């Protein structure tokens, strides 16, 4: 019994310690964000890596999400004769919830794992130590560009996801199911407010911070060997995805 309590205690202490280190890591990264000079070249490179190179997968998932959402919504609304509200329902679901969350999960799978692997390999091959020995700050060169790129690209990609999703919904709802084009877009304009769009953008922005922060942290604290990098990439994807969903709930309850 004592052994069990001891193990539980060790587990709690280890996790609290890890949480503290993760927080200190973010604090240090934020500190270095405000210390010039920013590495503009690296930020642009990471915007291209996280943003441009994720756009295809975001467009693909966005279009199919919009299409299936329209199908399911139409099925329900048809029973109440409320097909005219198909457009705003799809748009609200996408802009407030599905766009930010699903695009964040897709980017986590594609770019978050790659960020963790790249920084992890730099750690185990002593490239991060080499930066430090050259009196260059690794946060400035590796962490800050990734976090800034995440904050910039996530809202943009979520917006692309939303637009493509609404167009996918238009294809299915208007072209296939016969809802009138005027009702689909007209009602959307009536029901959608600026607040809905800003809520979605705030969510994406915070997801951008969460995913890049966790992915960078996992890579930066990689333990030695190939197994360490493998654990870091898995940890980056799993932790980021869970945190995105948990944080999404808190943001929705606060911003509702």
């Amino acid at each position, binding site marked *: 019994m004592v052994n069990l309590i001891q193990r539980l205690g060790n587990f709690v202490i280890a996790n609290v310690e890890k949480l503290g280190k993760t927080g200190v890591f973010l604090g240090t990264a934020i500190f270095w964000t405000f210390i010039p000079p920013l590495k503009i070249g690296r930020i642009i490179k990471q915007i291209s890596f996280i943003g441009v190179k994720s756009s295809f997968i975001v467009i693909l998932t966005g279009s199919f999400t919009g299409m299936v959402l329209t199908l399911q919504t139409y099925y329900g609304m048809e029973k109440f004769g409320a097909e005219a509200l198909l457009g705003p329902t799809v748009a609200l679901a996408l802009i407030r919830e599905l766009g930010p969350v699903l695009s964040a999960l897709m980017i986590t799978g594609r770019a978050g794992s790659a960020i963790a692997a790249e920084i992890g*390999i*730099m750690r185990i*091959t*002593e*490239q991060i*130590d*080499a930066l*430090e*020995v*050259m*009196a*260059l700050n690794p946060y400035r060169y590796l962490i800050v560009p990734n976090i800034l790129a995440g904050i910039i690209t996530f809202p943009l990609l979520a917006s692309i996801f939303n637009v493509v999703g609404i167009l996918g919904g238009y294809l299915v709802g208007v072209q296939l199911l016969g809802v009138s084009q005027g009702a689909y877009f007209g009602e959307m304009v009536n029901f959608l407010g600026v607040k809905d769009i800003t809520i979605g953008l705030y969510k994406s922005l915070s997801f951008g911070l969460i995913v890049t922060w966790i992915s960078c942290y996992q890579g930066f604290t990689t333990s030695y060997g190939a197994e360490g990098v493998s654990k870091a990439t898995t940890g980056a994807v799993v932790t980021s995805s869970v945190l995105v969903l948990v944080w999404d709930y808190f943001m929705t309850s606060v911003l509702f």
Partner: protein
Amino acid sequence: MIEVIDLHKSLNGTEVLKGITFKVVKGEILALIGKSGHGKSVLLKHIVGLIRAERGKVLINGEDISQSRGPAREQLRKKIGFLFQGGALFDSINVFDNVAFPLREKTRLKRDEIRERVLFELAQVGLSEVEGKFPAELSGGMKKRVALARCLIMDPEIMLFDEPTTGLDPATAKSINNLIRETHERLKFTGIIITHDIYQIFSIVQKIAVLNEGRIELIGTPTEIKTSEDPFVKQFFLKGDDHHEKI
């Protein structure tokens, strides 16, 4: 000058360094030898401030790097070049950019001047033709040479070598050792070299320190170490002889 005073460090509950004290005077190279896992690399990382000491001091020209932070530590690190075991070249950029990296980040030199310096350093390490290649396209020996060029481009006063010949074939190892000797004759840096090539370094270094279980077992000139009656040192050199004969 490098001075290590009563250095202690524990890693994962095991005491790795148990009160290390030694001094390397200006212009001298000290070889650090000992069995694997006895704290040689940990000691070297303390000297460059990558690991913080639990107790003791590491003085670089009289300033304690183990307690320094921020700009003060940056100033000390600018004086030091560190050749990592695997080279630690940035694998996303080519050889030219790797060597030019410290100059671009730490100086205000113009593009032409940087190019001239990089090509000069690459020529010094015998690699004039590889500037456009990426680290993954280079052999182990070439990586070490490029890494040495990257270290030397900032004209360090102090050079630290972490097993520069480990994993290389005997001929390449010999050429790297010769390169270190020639570079030292040219630049007169103060240095510490961790190595297992006991016999090859006799002609390069002025002093040898033997590390055993976190303590300096013996320190002296190559001749003093070679003729020492210390049982650990004798046993260590006996194994070195076997290894040497096999090669």
